[in-house]
């Protein structure tokens, strides 16, 4: 399959200025040296701690932020060097669902206007065809045509998130960067949207970069997963390999700490303790060393490069040492009574369909 997105050494540092003269006194090293590629029709998930650089990576990919260094190629075309006119054309092919739906929707536009705007801008549809497509898009994301006349503030958080997804779909892009697209949704609407994203992917060969902190959703939707820590990718692997045998101590801690939806379930939430590191002043050597149970002297001085270890690419000096990690299991199994009642509902549903 062809590679749609190829990212090499992407870096974004934000200057920190202080004082009246706004002198630069440091930099927030939000993203450093990030490289990955995504094939057509595939999903790469990016996971990692809050503040580790996921959204910055997503924005830099689409040049909504100018990268400090590195290269981003969409279908072989270098995005970081495009002049504004060509960038606009390229944007039709790459869209973003933003993490903050409220901030990314113009409060003075109706939903119809929000959805029609990109279609007109990119010459995809206008007039009646655009109208018809608005209704279709709304239905696609589980809203209704009557929602078209309303303004963003009239919607709930999850409904707004779905408007953002509809807007991203409006230009029929090749690549969508989804930044926490389902984190504002209840599990059943979340499931609808995830199923929808997968259907669209099968139908149109869409490629996704899927930023999420929900590992269960990531495991379900992603072909590959990149784990970021303090601006860098620390592990990257095929989804099944990553969950079956995570090699980086941080990945292992993340998986161990995943919440189990059952009262009394024991979670390994103690896993990553210690203070979150600061992107203003990253620790020396391996940035994870102050919190890592396996850290040695070498970790404090020498930064580990990504290297292949049993099916993963891992940036850890001691990746071979980690013990196999049992996957969370039975603790989250539904109760017997729940299963019995589900059966009653399923039987009734089947009977009425027949």
């Amino acid at each position: 399959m062809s590679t749609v997105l190829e990212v090499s050494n992407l870096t974004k540092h934000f200057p920190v200025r202080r004082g009246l003269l706004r002198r630069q006194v440091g930099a927030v090293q939000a993203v450093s040296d990030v490289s990955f590629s995504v094939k057509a029709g595939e999903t790469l998930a990016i996971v990692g701690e809050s503040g580790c650089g996921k959204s910055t990576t997503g924005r830099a990919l689409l040049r909504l932020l100018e990268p400090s260094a590195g290269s981003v190629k969409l279908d072989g075309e270098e995005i970081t060097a495009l002049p504004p006119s060509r960038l606009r054309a390229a944007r039709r092919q790459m869209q973003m669902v933003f993490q903050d739906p409220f901030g990314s929707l113009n409060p003075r536009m109706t939903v119809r206007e929000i959805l029609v705007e990109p279609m007109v801008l990119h010459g995809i549809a206008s007039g009646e065809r655009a109208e018809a497509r608005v209704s279709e898009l709304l239905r696609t994301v589980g809203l209704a045509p009557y929602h078209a006349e309303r303004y963003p503030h009239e919607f709930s958080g999850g409904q707004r998130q779905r408007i953002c997804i509809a807007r991203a779909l409006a230009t029929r892009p090749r690549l969508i960067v989804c930044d926490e697209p389902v984190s504002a949704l209840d599990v059943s609407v979340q499931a609808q949207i995830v199923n929808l994203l997968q259907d669209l992917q099968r139908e149109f060969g869409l490629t996704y970069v899927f930023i999420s902190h929900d590992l269960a959703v990531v495991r379900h939707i992603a072909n590959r997963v990149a784990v970021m820590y303090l601006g860098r990718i620390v592990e990257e692997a095929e989804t099944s390999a990553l969950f079956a045998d995570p090699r980086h101590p941080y990945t292992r801690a993340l998986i161990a700490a995943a919440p189990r939806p059952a009262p009394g379930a024991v979670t390994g939430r103690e896993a990553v303790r210690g203070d979150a590191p600061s992107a203003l002043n990253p620790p020396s050597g391996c940035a994870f060393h102050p919190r890592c149970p396996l850290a040695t002297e070498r970790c404090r001085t020498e930064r580990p490069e990504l290297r292949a270890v049993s099916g993963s690419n891992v940036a850890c000096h001691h990746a071979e040492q980690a013990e196999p990690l049992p996957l969370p299991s039975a603790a989250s199994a539904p109760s017997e009574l729940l299963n019995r009642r589900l059966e009653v509902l399923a039987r009734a549903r089947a009977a009425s369909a027949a």
Partner: protein
Amino acid sequence: MSETATQAPPATAAATDDVLLDVRDLKVHFDTEAGTFRAVDGVSFSVKRGKTLGIVGESGCGKSVTSSGIMRLVPMPPGRFAGGEVMFDGRDLLKLSEKEMRGMRGGRIGMIFQEPMTALNPVYRIGDQIIESLRVHSGLGRAAARRRAIELLDLVRLPSPEKRVDDFPHQLSGGQRQRVMIALALANDPELLIADEPTTALDVTIQAQILELMRDLSARTGAAIVLITHDLGVVAETCDDVVVMYAGRVVERAPVAALFAAPQHPYTIGLMAAVPRLDIQSDRLETIPGSVPPPYAKIDGCRFASRCPVATDQCRAELPPLRELAPGHSVACWRAPLEDVA
């Protein structure tokens, strides 16, 4: 479950049995050109000091309107209180003057909003926003307030708080903004904390630390917490009781263990089954087929009937009242418990 949540209540304020917040038959309607939208239509629940009540329900079912209704922050018009009372420590918040209400917000009642940018002002430094609140509600001096602000930012795990205290909101990541807002809500040790999706933007480790912070508040000061979340893992871990809402109404109410062990309402049952699981890989995620009725539709019966496989004529004609099936466990469904359905 965490230690704090399973322990017998200690002999502090947290152990007293008094109800701090009692929401009675709250109705918040929106008057729009298309008609009246009953976004919240007769919601009742109560929370005791030291306890945490979870509210779950489908996106758009009225959870945020309920919480901003309690805080009297629903835009009016088009919104309107169509009935009900919000008793807080014996007084009806709906009857307070706007000035009294302003004193409550950020003082005795803290609120974490679903979208951080609704609470944070983009043109002020985050530290200044917290300092302002500390000065107004706790009467701290400027220097003390700044020290406390940095301490609060550290508590919510913002790295380099002494530097980032001078950042503007746009310089923070989504999860960092959410944590700043949490710091703001906790600043004055509120007696009641209303948290609307406080951890959606947070990874599991930071989420765990934030939940611990909330539990700590409740254990230390006996604060009551209303926690709105769609994360059933968070509910399981944090809440004492849970209210399930559907289309503007409470359809089920139960102690947390009972809700997970024996969910009664067909909506709750579907919700539980839709939780994606880390230990099972399936081709498609489980959903609840169908969608909520359009907001202006006049519905006499059960609002879930159009999606409910076991709906009867009675369901479509008559609104099911909440009835108690087990101690503390009520459900608004004519046919529960379902295993008795032939």
